Structures are given as structure tokens and as C-alpha cells.
């Protein structure tokens, strides 16, 4: 950044201007088939244009047939986000020309969406934030284009792949209730977590199954009106959203400080440049000419259907975290960590049910197990050791049969390979040396062999004790309990 006096930092801009941020999230639904045809909704990895049929290719004469599971998943999501489900809704055609849109219109929902008026509550820096959710509606995804250059208009040639065209896509429109990039990021984290929890979306930002566009404008603190908003696209990580919003706040703030006006436009985040660039200005603003989709009858959702979907909702992350705190005495921090992924929370509950103390279960899962899962790209549930193996390992530690460092080594060794920890400990004689007489004999031997260290310690050098503890551990091949050994040494040397 240059340092002319006219250039303000993010903090300076935010002192003068209040960002107003609203997010639009698109989530692909984990249905088996596409929204309006029988093709697979799982299109990743198929050869280009192979996962298609006359319907999703938009050939003349074809008709859409609604995927009922997609409707159910959308209603499930809407309920998890505290939305109302109107009895009557319908699909509409959103008209525009683009090569990734085979029919020249997208079947979406305009004025009668599947759900309305929800909200999501979360905490950022100890402050509770409540973000309204305008609506959750259902539509179809487009195909994908590949072209040279940043935007189609400048590309020399482009290729179209329609494998993704027609995949069920849920749009979650948030109210402009967010005020900082951190709030925006946390909103997305929580939203993604909920969708993954309820099994409707896989939450993959990189592959674009969970996508976010942001609308952002600035206004004077205390103003209630809204400034000119800019739409930011192409952010495919939480970090990108955070950075793009920070960039926009500074960019818009500087322009406003200079007395300039903000252009209403769509800008794309370019990760490599760390900047947003203008993609489409107002002259290109679309008139989508929405009108009711005549090929699909209006949708009527009975109260019984909605009740059934509601009853089938799993425990949501927040409820689960609260319950773990209540039932197992976990701290809010541990509970939040353990519930970030539903599988972790499941593993925790399974360990506890198998007799592992809650605190130990939490520590192991969030520490060593999380590290190994990350490094080996293998979740505990899919590892060789599995939940049962981990439970048995942790119980060996808790019973004092092995010490912590042995347990860590065993975990590392058995995580992928699998095996019964108790059997391995027995076979290799890894059991902790807990025979008091045996330990005393070893301690005495180490004292006798290390007169210098003894003298140092007795002369006041605390660290010298560690050398003696190390000697005992070495003699037991690490199977002694270091705390017990330390106690014994102090006792002996104090005499």
C-alpha cells in the first residue's frame, strides 16, 4: 500500500463508514438426480457433456419434471434456518442468454418462493449477531464455461460443459444485516455447517457446491438508508470472502472520502491480485422478465408434509453444542470445536458412551486425532483404528496401563493400520511400569550413576532433575509414568 495521506486503512475507513453486507448463498443439493431430469446430480469427474439428456441439454420439445427430494431438502434447510413455509409456491422462468444456460432461461422462483422470513443467530467476538434470511428458494444450476481471459466477452473461444446444468440449486438470500467481514465470514461458516449437518449439501467451496456472492455498500454511521451496492462474485473460500469484503470496504471508502460516487456494478474477486475487478456495469443490468413456468403446475405443500420434514430434522450444531455442555460439562469452547463437524460430535458421544471420561475424549479428538485426520486425509470413522480402537486406547491411558507418550505413539502407528491397542500393549510389553519396588530400584540406580546431575540438583539447578527423570524413562523404554518417577526422585534426593 502506498502511503499518501489520502489513502486510508481498513480501520480508518470503518471509523468513518459503516459497511452494509448481505450474502447470497447457492448450495447444490445432495439429491441423486438433477432438478428436472433423471441425470445424476453428481457430475464431478464425468467427461464433458456426458452427464446430460435431452431435458438438461434444453433440446426443443422437452419438459421439466420436478425432483421432489429437492423440494424436501429445500424445505428442510428453510426450517433449519427458521423460515416460514407458505402453502403455495411456484416456479418461474428467469430469462437471459448465456451459453451455459441451455434453455435461455433458468427455472427459478420469483415472487412465491418455497420459504420466507428466517434468521440465523451466531456469535462474533462475544457479540451475538442475528442475520435475517429473506428467503430460501429452489432453482437449477447452469453448465460451466471454460475460456481464455477473465471474462467471456474477451475470450477468443469458449467451451461449454453441461454436466452441471440442471443440478438442484438452493438459493439462500440473506438480509443486509452484516456489518463486518468477520460477521460475514462467521455467517457463512455457520450456514455451511447447518447445511452439512442436515445432509443437504457437502459444503465444498472450492468445487463450488457451496457458493457465495456478496452485496456490499457503505453508509455513514447512524444512517438508516443504504448506499449504492456493489455485487462481489468469484469468492471460493471463507478467506476469499473475508479478503474481498475488506478490499471493497477500503476501495469504496476511499472513493467516498474523495467525494466520488460508487458505481452500481458486479465485481469479481481475483485471488491472485488480491483485488476485485469490474465485471459488468449497470448498462448490462438484466431485465430477467420473470413469469410463471407454464410447464410446471404450482406447488402446494401441505402442513402434514412440512411437519414431517420438521420432525425429521436432526439436532442442529448449536443445539448439540448446548447439550454437550449441559450433559458432559464441556466448556463452550470445547463444545463449539467438537460440533464444528457433526462426525466429531458423534465420535465424542460414542467415546463417552464407551466409558471414556468426557474431558479426555474431547482432548484426544480435538488434539492428536484431529491432527492425524488432517495429515492422513482420513477421518477417524474411516481410519483403521476406528472409534472402538480409539476408545480402547484412551481407556488404557485412563486406567494407567500405558502412559501418554506410549498412547500417542500407538495412535500414530495404529491410526491407519488398525489393530487392538490392548493386544499390542500386551504383546510388546508396553504396559506402564507401575511396580513401586521396581521403580525405586531403577531410581536408585540412576542416582548412583549420575553423581554430577545429583550434585547440580542439590546445588539448586532444577533442570538437572529432568536429566535424572530421562535416565529412568530410558531404562524403562519410556514405559514409566514420568510424574511418579519425578516424585520418587525428589523424595530420594530430599533426604
Amino acid at each position: 500500500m502506498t502511503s499518501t495521506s489520502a489513502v486510508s486503512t481498513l480501520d480508518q475507513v470503518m471509523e468513518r463508514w459503516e459497511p452494509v453486507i448481505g450474502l447470497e448463498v447457492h448450495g447444490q443439493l445432495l439429491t441423486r438426480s438433477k432438478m428436472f431430469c433423471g441425470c445424476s446430480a453428481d457430475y464431478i469427474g464425468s467427461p464433458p457433456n456426458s452427464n446430460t439428456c435431452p431435458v438438461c441439454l434444453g433440446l426443443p420439445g422437452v419438459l421439466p419434471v420436478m425432483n421432489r427430494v429437492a423440494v424436501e431438502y429445500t424445505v428442510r434447510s428453510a426450517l433449519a434456518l427458521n423460515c416460514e413455509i407458505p402453502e403455495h409456491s411456484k416456479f418461474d422462468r428467469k430469462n437471459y442468454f448465456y451459453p451455459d444456460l441451455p434453455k435461455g432461461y433458468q427455472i427459478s422462483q420469483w415472487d412465491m418462493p418455497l420459504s420466507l422470513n428466517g434468521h440465523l443467530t451466531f456469535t462474533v467476538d462475544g457479540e451475538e449477531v442475528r442475520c435475517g434470511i429473506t428467503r430460501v428458494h429452489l432453482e437449477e444450476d447452469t453448465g460451466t464455461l471454460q475460456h481464455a481471459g477473465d471474462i467471456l466477452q474477451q475470450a477468443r473461444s469458449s467451451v461449454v460443459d453441461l454436466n452441471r446444468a440442471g443440478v438442484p440449486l438452493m438459493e439462500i438470500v440473506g438480509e443486509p444485516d452484516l456489518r463486518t467481514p468477520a460477521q460475514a465470514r462467521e455467517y457463512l461458516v455457520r450456514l455451511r455447517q447447518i447445511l452439512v449437518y442436515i445432509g443437504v449439501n457437502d459444503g465444498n467451496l472450492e468445487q463450488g457446491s457451496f457458493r457465495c456472492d456478496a452485496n456490499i455498500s457503505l453508509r455513514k454511521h447512524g444512517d438508516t438508508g443504504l448506499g449504492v451496492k456493489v455485487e462481489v462474485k468469484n469468492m471460493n473460500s471463507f478467506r476469499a470472502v473475508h479478503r474481498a469484503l475488506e478490499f471493497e470496504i477500503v476501495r469504496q471508502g476511499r472513493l467516498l472520502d474523495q467525494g466520488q460516487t460508487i458505481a452500481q456494478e458486479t465485481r469479481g474477486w481475483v485471488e491472485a491480485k488480491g483485488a476485485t475487478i469490474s465485471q459488468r456495469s449497470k448498462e448490462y443490468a438484466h431485465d430477467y422478465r420473470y413469469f410463471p413456468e407454464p410447464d410446471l403446475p404450482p406447488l402446494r405443500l401441505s402442513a402434514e408434509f412440512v411437519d414431517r420434514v420438521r420432525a425429521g430434522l436432526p439436532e442442529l450444531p448449536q443445539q448439540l453444542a448446548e447439550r454437550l455442555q449441559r450433559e458432559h460439562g464441556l466448556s463452550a469452547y470445547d463444545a463449539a470445536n467438537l460440533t464444528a463437524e457433526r462426525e466429531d460430535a458423534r465420535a465424542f458421544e460414542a467415546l463417552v458412551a464407551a466409558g471414556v471420561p468426557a474431558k479426555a475424549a474431547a482432548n484426544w479428538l480435538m488434539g492428536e486425532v484431529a491432527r492425524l485426520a488432517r495429515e492422513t486425509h482420513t477421518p477417524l470413522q474411516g481410519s483403521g483404528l476406528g472409534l472402538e480402537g480409539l476408545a480402547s486406547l484412551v481407556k488404557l491411558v485412563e486406567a494407567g496401563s500405558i502412559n501418554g507418550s506410549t498412547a500417542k505413539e500407538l495412535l500414530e502407528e495404529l491410526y491407519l493400520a488398525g489393530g487392538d491397542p490392548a493386544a499390542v500393549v500386551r504383546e510388546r510389553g508396553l504396559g506402564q511400569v507401575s511396580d513401586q519396588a521396581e521403580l525405586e530400584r531403577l531410581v536408585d540406580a540412576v542416582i548412583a550413576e549420575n553423581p554430577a546431575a545429583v550434585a547440580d540438583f542439590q546445588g539448586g539447578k532444577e533442570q538437572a532433575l529432568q536429566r535424572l527423570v530421562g535416565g529412568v524413562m530410558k531404562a524403562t523404554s519410556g514405559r514409566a509414568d514420568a510424574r511418579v518417577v519425578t516424585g520418587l526422585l525428589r523424595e530420594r534426593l530430599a533426604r
Partner: protein
Amino acid sequence: MSPETVGGLGARLRRGETTPAELAAQARGALQSIEDLHPVLRYTDALTERQAGRAARMLAESPERAGPLCGIPFAYKDVLCVEGVETSAGSRILEGFIPPYTGTAIQRLLDAGAVPIAVTNCDEFAMGSSNENSAFGPVGNPWDPSRVPGGSSGGSAAVVSAGAVPFSLGTDTGGSIRQPASFCGVAGFKPTYGRVSRYGLIAFASSLDQIGPFTRSVEDAAHVFTAMAGHDPRDSTTSPLPVEPVATQVARGVAGMRLGVPREYMAEGLEPGVRAAVLAALAELEKLGATLVEVSLPSTEAALSTYYIIAPAECSANLARMDGVRFGLHVDRKSLTDTYLETRGQGFGPEVKRRIMLGTYALSSGYYDAYYRQAQKVRTLIAEEFDRAFESVDALVCPTSPIVAFPKGDKSDPLSMYLCDVLTIPVNLAGLPGISIPCGLSQGLPVGLQVIGPRLGDAQVLRVAHAYEAATAWHAQMPPSSPTATGTPS
């Protein structure tokens, strides 16, 4: 002598006097002999041969189980998709488009053993009332080749009128089956909206389009309808209700039925010859025991403008897929926008462009409420008026068209052309079944009687039409110059 009906041909097939292949060859020959009328765009030879073979096997295996359409040749309009056969919707933009799938209606006919022979000419994307909007040239009316056959299903009407095939398929969005049936002197039936699947029909206006048959008799129309009708999981707008067994109902007669005559349909604007023929037909129905009741449909006047908002609005979206990216015409230009503009500019004819622009305008932000929303309200009103009328009558009877077939080039301004459909359009807006059957001649040209029924009252419509047909001889009239009429033996 008049050409044979589906029923007559079927009887001969079952007696072993002829074969599907022989009938197919005769039909092809007859179609070729009327090529100067230009009703056929292409022949389906490979499919014809396969299907004739299939029909022959079906007849050999079980002559009783083979349905009435088994082995019967037919032609279909160039907007219906059949796997492996070019379908161009009468448009340059789809020239060379070969669908990789077969639509439901034709699939059901194929399964019943019917044998396709040819694809018929029509107005481009079914938009027109004279067949003059076809990108491949107009069609002549077999009764007078200098006159139009009506539209948009002009080719399908002409081939049945000339006696070349016993039946053909058309589509009706605002009268595109009934009006050409009227102009060509054959039966043309538009079923209730949602009774025949639209899957495989290249859409003009999705909420109005319906597939139906042209035949030489009402009984034949019932056969074709029965084979095609019924719920289709591929078309969510098809009715899930079972189809009434039509065959047992058509021959019941009209004695005791109450038939409504809409005052607004008999108003000024009717050609005197048309009025006279229709009045005579009404008298005949009365003689057959029906009670005639005058009814009023006051919103009729608004139907035309309502239609010309809704149909273009839907077509503006339906035709957006014709963009040169995946199929059909592609005019390569440097930029994407220019490629779109040139492809569509060169590919669509003037009437199609006019309707796309009308529809785009009607849906535009700021105009939607004044046009599209308003039109939907009037549409509801029109449907409700019909509902009220059907509380007191079993069916409505009226002219199909206020005029008879007009000379080619006679209606060069769009509005006068649009007015041809003033008596058929309300039926599409309300989604009702309607048929046109021959009921006389005016200036030596056929006049059509329209029978309209309540929603899903397809059998009722056919029943009234059949009673009239059974009592009169108009359906047996042949065009003066047709090959059959001039004595070509079959």
C-alpha cells in the same frame, strides 16, 4: 368414392387383404402425387419401413389384440420430435435438427402400430393461420390450390383432405388444428389441455399447446385420441385422471343433450355462407333431438388481445434455446452477442420475430403488470365464463372460423390474419376440448362446425360431432381436384 377411414383400412388389414407395407407405399405415392401443394417437408422412409414391419408382426401375432391403428399410415406436423427424423418446426433455425428422442404422443402411436410416412409443412414454430409463414414455402388448399389450407397445421390438414393418408397429427395453440380442418373440410380435434402429453412437441406457447388428430371421420379422431391420451410422467401438465373410454360414448347420439350457441360467436363478421351453413347444422342437431340454448360469453371480445399477450410471452422464452450453441443454425461471429443476433436474425422469419418481440415487451420490467398480469386475469375470466355456460349446457356449437379459406397473400397485415382465430382462441385460453367438422360449403369451399366441451369432456365433444356427422354427408365431400376424387383407385 371417398378414401378409406382408419376403421375401413383396419378391417382390410385384419382380413389379410392388404399389408402395412402396401398401405405405406400407397400413402407415400399419394403424398407424392400432391407435391405441387407442398404439404410434405420430408418422408420418414427408414422409420416407415421399420414400423410397417413391426405392425405386420403385431397383426400376425394377434390380429384381435392389435388395436385399430395397427398398420395405419399417418403423417405428422414438423413440430413433433421423432428420434432420428429431422424436425425443423418450419424454421431455418432448426434446419438439420435431428432429435435424439421420440415424443410421447408419437411413441404411443408407434406402440399402437401406426406407421409414419411423412413430416408435414406448417407455419414456422406453429405461428400463423395460413401456413404462409413456413420457411419452406406455403401449402396449397386441396380444394383450391391458390388458397391457403389454414394454419398453422396446414400441411397436416391438406394431406388428409386430399385423401393421401387417413389421419395426421397437428398441434393447436389458438386454433391451429380446428381452423385448417375447417378450411380443408376434414375433422380436426383439439383435446382438453393436459389430456395429451406435450413431451416432444416443440413448444410455441406451453400453456396453450395441445396435440390432436386430423381425420376423415369423428370415429377415427376418437381412435387416434384414445391411443395418445393419458397421463405422462414426462409432462407434469398432463391430467392424472384416467381417460374416459371414448369409443363407447361417441355413438350415443345427441337426443336429450342441451347444446349452447354462444351469441358472441354468431355476431357480425361471419361470412354469410358460413352463417348459413352453421345455422343449417344447428337445425340438424335440433332435429336429432338436441335442445339449442343461446348462451353468452361476454369476454370473447377480449380473448384475442389476451392471447396475443400470453402466447408471445411464452414463446419469447420457449424460443430462447434456439441460440445456435448446441443445435440448428449457427452463424459464427466474433463476439457472443453478434453470434446470437446473427443466428437468430437469419434463422427466424418475420412473424416469429414479431411475436418474440411482443412477448419480450409484455414481460419487461414496468410493463408486466399492465400486460402479462392483466392478460392472466382476463384468461381466468374467460375460463370462468365457459364454466358457467357448461353449468346449463352439455356442449357449445358454433362456427370454427368466420370465413372460408382465403387466397394466398390475401391477408398481408398481421392483425387481419390474427382475426381468423377469433372463434378458436378462447377455447385454448380456457383449456377446453374442441373439434371442427365439415358442415357445408360456401363459395364451393368447406365450412367447419365447431363443438366445444367442458374440461375433460372430450368424449362429449366427439359424441356431438359424431351424431352430426352420422346424419349428414359433408364429411364425405372430397376436394374437386384430389387424386382420390378424380378416380385413382386405391
